[in-house]
């Protein structure tokens, strides 16, 4: 690794000040499970790591009205172990469980998973499908941006210089709504997602009222598939309906290259994952 500075601000205010002061080479450090690899491979021009783990405002999982506020520092393990998450948005726990291994989940955070903007990030598709947003703080104040708008592409996010991701706001699905996530990889345990799909569905009288389908890992940025979602809305979802929606989801995809798998196979698996996520969400809605 190249040499760099390290600081550990104790408050959000201190953190945004330091980030603004240090400028371009300053990077927030949370769980470190990605940034340390980048540093070891000498791919990141970091002159200063701002360790944000001591900042109390970035912690905790709380219910705030119709939404959950999940602190940016919440680890994947904490997501998995939270009864509040389990009760309100179990899909987040399910997605967190797909990520790597226990030791990595003990360090990796929800904020890191989003800011890393890795196409295969497991939390991002369900967060987007749920309509989540991120809360950002800087020296000049706070703002809220939808996760869908925040993730711009592979390794690109709409963060401003000096900003810190403070928390993720996740709308809790109403009682007749649910979200499911399915993913495929080259191996059963701890593999990086080769393709993934999240489906959010709400129902009214046995008919789908609202649908959001988000694809992950297959393109450089998470993709909303509006046509398929529109197709589901107003129908009573069956195997065949889900199959048809899944088929629509993969038309016109621009898959990124995965050295391990062909585009054909990954789009086929995308179709399967959409089908699976839609059927699981629908089953949940109707439970």
């Amino acid at each position, binding site marked *: 690794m190249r040499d760099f500075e390290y600081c550990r601000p104790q408050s959000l205010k201190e953190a945004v000040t330091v980030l603004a002061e240090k400028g371009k080479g300053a990077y927030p450090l949370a769980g470190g*499970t990605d940034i*340390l690899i980048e540093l070891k491979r000498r791919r990141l021009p970091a002159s200063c790591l701002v360790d944000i783990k001591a900042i109390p405002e970035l912690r905790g999982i709380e219910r705030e009205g119709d939404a959950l506020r999940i602190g940016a520092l919440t680890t994947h393990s904490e997501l998995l172990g939270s009864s509040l998450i389990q009760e309100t948005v179990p899909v987040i726990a399910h997605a967190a469980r797909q990520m*790597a*291994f*226990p*030791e*990595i989940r003990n360090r990796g955070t929800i904020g890191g998973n989003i800011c890393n903007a890795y196409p295969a990030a497991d939390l991002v598709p369900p967060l987007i499908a749920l309509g989540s947003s991120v809360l950002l703080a800087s020296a000049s104040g706070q703002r809220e941006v939808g996760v869908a708008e925040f993730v711009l592409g592979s390794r690109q996010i709409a963060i401003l210089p000096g900003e810190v991701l403070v928390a993720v706001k996740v709308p809790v699905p109403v009682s007749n709504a649910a979200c499911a996530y399915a993913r495929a990889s080259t191996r059963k345990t701890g593999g990086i997602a080769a393709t993934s799909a999240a489906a959010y569905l709400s129902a009214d009288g046995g008919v789908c009222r609202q649908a959001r389908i988000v694809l992950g890992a297959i393109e450089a940025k998470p993709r909303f598939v509006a046509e398929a979602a529109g197709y589901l809305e107003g129908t009573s979802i069956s195997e065949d309906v889900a199959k048809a929606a899944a088929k629509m989801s993969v038309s016109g995809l621009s898959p990124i290259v995965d050295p391990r798998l062909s585009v054909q196979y990954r789009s086929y698996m995308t179709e399967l994952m959409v089908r699976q996520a839609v059927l699981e969400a629908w089953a949940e809605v109707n439970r």
Partner: protein
Amino acid sequence: MRYEITVKVNGEDYEAYIPARRTLLDFLRDDLGLRGTKKGCDEGDCGSCVVLLDGTPVNSCMVLAVEVNGREVTTIEGLAKGDELHLVQRAFVEQGAIQCGYCTPGMVLAGKALLDVNPHPTTTEIKEAISGHLCRCTGYGAIVEAIQAAAESMDGGQRASGKTGRSD
């Protein structure tokens, strides 16, 4: 840039003045001479470097030493009490769960951390707990059996064997 840190390792306090870029793994191995913690991939994929940070297993290659300032680390060297092996260690020896031994320190610590929070794990839970650890020698069979045996011996062998049966 260098920084001063104080860290408790295996119950003993250490003060050090180290560069920010030093990982906890290199700090343990090269600065403290605790080379029982192994470097297998240095990218969080193999589990050879797992230590307990305030009781929780982490890949020490994925943590900077400066980050653990003021915290407590347990390495494989801190597990046995004098000549008396920890139950998980003893089970690894007795069950033939060790071949080359390079994964053993991380595996043992992961097993201990699991039993600390879940004293009656199923085989599925054991496999999940060590899923971040590669072993290229044993095929994992004896390792899973050893953690299971350790769980049983912690119970003084009282527990019904069915609870950790292979069938789950």
